[in-house]
């Protein structure tokens, strides 16, 4: 057995592999054109330990389709760069509930991975949807201390617009997850 290759920071110039259209998973000329489901925007601001915005992060998402499937042909991947205000923004479909451990069910969620200068390895978290009746049964949320659970709950700003801010460090620090 050989250990996994060490991670290294993505650095400040990762935008050379940024393709801004990837932030729109439903784009007309993309792999999900015409996919069925509820169109949503997932957005939020990323801040650091001083509360300063992180304007140079690479943000990636990974999610199931509207029926909670990863093997349906829906391409549940997106990437975007945070802007000058530290804001990321994806256009996608609201995912369905996904099978969980032991024949359980995971509430609908979107994985968010963040890479940046100053992060020696990417950090991953999940965006859940506030108000979803299945949150109480989610086996991953159940592992997160109650007091910090809200850091994983996207809130609906208006119909179809969900916001989850991410705090890398300090007060209100986002809970990051490691499988």
């Amino acid at each position, binding site marked *: 057995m050989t250990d*996994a290759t060490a991670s290294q920071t993505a650095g400040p110039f990762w935008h050379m592999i940024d393709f801004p259209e990837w932030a729109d998973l439903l784009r007309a000329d993309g792999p999900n054109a015409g996919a069925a489901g509820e169109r949503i925007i997932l957005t939020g601001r990323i801040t650091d330990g001083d509360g300063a915005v992180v304007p140079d992060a690479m943000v990636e998402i990974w999610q199931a389709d509207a029926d909670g499937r990863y093997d349906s042909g829906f391409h549940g991947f997106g990437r975007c760069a945070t802007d000058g205000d530290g804001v990321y923004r994806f256009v996608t479909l609201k995912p369905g509930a*996904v099978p969980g451990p032991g024949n359980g069910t995971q509430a609908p969620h979107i994985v968010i991975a963040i890479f940046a200068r100053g*992060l020696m390895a990417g950090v991953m978290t999940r965006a859940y949807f506030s108000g979803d009746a299945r949150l109480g049964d989610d086996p991953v949320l159940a592992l997160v201390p109650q007091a910090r659970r809200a850091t994983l709950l996207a809130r609906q700003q208006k119909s179809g617009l969900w916001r989850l801010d991410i705090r890398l460090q300090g007060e209100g620090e986002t809970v990051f997850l490691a499988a």
Partner: protein
Amino acid sequence: MSDPIPYRPIAAGSQPPLDLPSYRSTGKRHPMAAPVHIPTTLTEASAPNFATPWYAPHTNLSVVDGKAAMGERIIVAGRVTDENGRPVPNAMVEVWQANASGRYHHARDQHDAPLDPNFLGRGRVITDAEGQYRFTSIRPGAYPWRNPGPGWRPQHIHFGLHGTGFAQRLITQMYFPGDPLLVMDAVFLGGGDEAARERLVAVLDPELMQPDWALGYRFDIVLRGRAATPFENA
């Protein structure tokens, strides 16, 4: 539905700490709390399929519109496997790098070194059935940075990989053997224990060289593997 086989825990010393005081930018960006460990669910064990027309390979970085970039032409190739030694086919390998004079084709790179109109410095390869990838490029130059005092990054190529599970996502950097800047680079030195750092350094490989044309470097990459084989688990 049976549960996915869990990924192995991260081996001690194999990965950098997020809090790395010698690399100043980690100071306000590393989480204070340890991550919450979660089971490997279908979400972590699944991954995007990049072997589609939307992710067309771009494997020759050494020319733009048929015009050759300045610098030392190199072939970089290797094999992507998991920790169990199994090849990872259809993995997306993305690379980006500075040009021969140490400047990125990036608006925010203000290093006073010339841009090369024939070098954009980004590429994409999808691994074959044996996990192999290969591209042609130019050996990147070293460049200055502030950390916060002045220093020089060793020559390196950034690599990003997606495997068969999203938990395998990796971003790393490939370095060149014998680079004297390695021993004073906080990012390289912070990459884990000596064995982990050694694996970040490519190997000059005569078999990859093309006579009268290009030097060849081999850089094999290992993604996280599952804790047990399906057979052991059956």
